[in-house]
C-alpha cells in the first residue's frame, strides 16, 4: 500500500534516490539544493540507505566523482543548482559524451551578478546543449516521480545518458505538499538493478575517455546526437511503464484545456500550475485559451509540439531566462525555429519574466495571455515582451 505524506519537494527527490537504492552520492551543498544532499547524508548516517556519501570540495569534483562511480556501474546521484551547475559545466559534457547515466536533481537558481539565491531557468538553459536528458517538475509529487523515472530511463541500455530533473528553486524545492510514496516492492518492479554494459573491470580492460582527433571527433558527436534523439522512445516508454505501476502518467508535452483553443500558453516547471489557474479563469470567461506544460526539454519533443499547435493561431511562450543579445527567450527562440518550416504555424510571442525568483501570480499569467494576443494582433516587431518589470522596456526590436 502506498502512503500519502507531507513532503518538501527536496525531500521527495531524496526519498526517490533512497528508494532507488543509489550506491553513491557525491554532492556539494548550494542553495536552494541544500536540503537534498542534507537529507541523503542523514539517511546514509542513520543507516536508512546503504550508499557511499562523498562530501566533495566542489561541484566540478562532484560531477567528476559521479563519472567515476557510474563508470564502474554504480547507481549514481547528485544534486546542484545555479552557479553550482555552471561550475560543473564542462564535466556535464563528459558525462553525456561518455554515456554515463548520472542522475541529478537541479534546484534551478538564477546566476550572478547581482548575487541571487532565488530561482529562474538561466542555469537550465545554459545546460541545454550539454547532451543531458532534461525534465521539469511541477510539484513535489513529480519531484519524486521524475527522479525515480530518471534512473529507469537514463540507465536503460538503449539510452545510457545522464538525466537532469529540474525543480524550481524555492518555488518548488522548499514547498511541502502531499506526496504519495509507493511501496519498495513497486519501486523494485519499476526499476531494475543497474547493469552498465561497459563497467570498468580490471579483468576486462578497456579504454574510457579516449582521445578524439579531428578525424574522429565529428563522428563521435553525431553518434551521440543520434543516440540522444533515439532515446525519446525509451523516455516515453518509461513514462508509460511508470503510469502502469504507479497510476500517474506523464508526457513530453502536457496539454491542458487545449481543445479548440486558438491561443496557447507554454510554460515549464512549477509555474505551469499557477498558469493553469489563469487558464481556468479565462475558459470560464469563455475565452479560447489553453496551456502546454513542456515537461521534456531535452531531447526536445518536436513532433509532439507540432501536433499540439496544429490549429493554434497564437503561441505565447513564457521564459524565465534572458538570452542576452539574442532573438528572444531561449525556449521561445527554439520553438520559433522548430515551427518555422511548418506550412501552418502559430505566431510565437516570447514573454520573459520571473527572473531571480520574482513571483508570478495568476493575474500575471492572465496579463501574459492578454498581452500576447494583443502584440500578435498588431504584428509587433518587438523580439519579446516582459512581465512584471518596473519601467517601460523599449528598443528590443529585431528590426531597426
Amino acid at each position, binding site marked *: 500500500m502506498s502512503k500519502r505524506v507531507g513532503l518538501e519537494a527536496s525531500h521527495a527527490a531524496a526519498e526517490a534516490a533512497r528508494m532507488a537504492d543509489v550506491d553513491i552520492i557525491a554532492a556539494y551543498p548550494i542553495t536552494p539544493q541544500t536540503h537534498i544532499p542534507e537529507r541523503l547524508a542523514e539517511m546514509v548516517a542513520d543507516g536508512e540507505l546503504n550508499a557511499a556519501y562523498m562530501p566533495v570540495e566542489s561541484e566540478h569534483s562532484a560531477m567528476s566523482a559521479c563519472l567515476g562511480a557510474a563508470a564502474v556501474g554504480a547507481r549514481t546521484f547528485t544534486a546542484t543548482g545555479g552557479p553550482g551547475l555552471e561550475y560543473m559545466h564542462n564535466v556535464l559534457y563528459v558525462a553525456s*559524451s*561518455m*554515456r*554515463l547515466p548520472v542522475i541529478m536533481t537541479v534546484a534551478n537558481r538564477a546566476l550572478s551578478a547581482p548575487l541571487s539565491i532565488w530561482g529562474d531557468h538561466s542555469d537550465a538553459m545554459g545546460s541545454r546543449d550539454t547532451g543531458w536528458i532534461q525534465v521539469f517538475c511541477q510539484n513535489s509529487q513529480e519531484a519524486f516521480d521524475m527522479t525515480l523515472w530518471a534512473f529507469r530511463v537514463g540507465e536503460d541500455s538503449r539510452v*545510457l545518458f545522464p538525466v537532469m530533473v529540474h525543480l524550481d528553486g524555492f518555488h518548488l524545492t522548499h514547498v511541502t505538499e502531499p506526496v504519495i510514496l509507493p511501496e519498495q516492492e513497486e519501486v523494485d518492479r519499476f526499476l531494475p538493478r543497474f547493469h552498465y*554494459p*561497459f563497467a570498468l573491470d580490471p579483468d576486462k*580492460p*578497456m*579504454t*574510457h*575517455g*579516449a582521445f*578524439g582527433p579531428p*578525424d*574522429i571527433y*565529428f*563522428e*563521435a558527436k*553525431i*553518434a551521440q546526437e*543520434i*543516440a540522444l534523439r533515439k532515446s525519446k522512445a525509451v523516455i516515453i516508454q518509461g513514462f508509460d511503464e511508470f503510469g502502469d505501476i504507479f497510476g500517474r502518467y506523464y508526457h513530453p508535452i502536457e496539454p491542458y484545456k487545449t481543445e479548440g483553443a486558438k491561443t496557447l500558453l507554454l510554460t515549464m516547471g512549477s509555474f505551469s500550475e499557477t498558469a493553469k489557474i489563469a487558464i481556468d479563469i479565462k475558459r470560464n470567461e469563455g475565452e479560447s485559451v489553453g496551456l502546454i506544460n513542456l515537461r521534456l526539454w531535452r531531447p526536445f519533443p518536436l513532433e509532439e509540439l507540432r501536433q499540439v499547435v496544429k490549429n493554434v493561431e497564437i503561441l505565447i511562450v513564457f521564459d524565465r531566462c534572458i538570452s542576452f543579445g539574442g532573438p528572444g527567450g531561449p525556449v521561445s527562440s527554439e520553438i520559433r525555429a522548430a515551427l518555422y518550416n511548418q506550412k501552418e504555424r502559430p505566431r510565437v510571442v516570447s514573454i520573459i519574466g520571473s527572473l531571480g525568483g520574482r513571483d508570478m501570480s495568476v493575474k500575471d499569467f492572465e496579463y501574459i495571455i492578454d498581452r500576447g494576443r494583443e502584440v500578435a494582433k498588431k504584428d509587433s516587431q518587438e523580439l519579446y515582451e516582459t512581465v512584471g518589470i518596473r519601467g517601460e522596456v523599449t528598443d528590443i526590436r529585431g528590426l531597426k
Partner: protein
Amino acid sequence: MREKRLKTGSDFTWRDIKVGNIVTEVGNAALRRTGDWRSQRPIIDKEKCNKCGLCWLYCPDAAIKPLEDGYYERNLFYCKGCGTCAKVCPREAITMIEEEEQ
C-alpha cells in the same frame, strides 16, 4: 595472434563509434602511425655506438628498438623527432636531420 587492423579513413563512419567512445580492444593505439607529424628524424651511426642503451631508455615513446646484436634502431612509425635520444647519447652517435633533407 589475431590480426589487428584499424578501420580508418572513409570506411569509418559515425555508426562505427562505440557507445561512449569506449575502446574495447585495448592496446590498439600501437596500430596508429603517430610519427607522421615529425619535422626531424634521428640518424644512428653504428660506428660510434657502444650499445649503452641510453637512447632506448630515454625515448619517451618507445620508438627506439633494441636489436638482437645489441645495437638499436629507430622506429619511424612512432618517432616524433623530439631529439631526446640524440641529446642523451654519450658518443654523439645520433644526429637529428630535418625531414626535408632526407
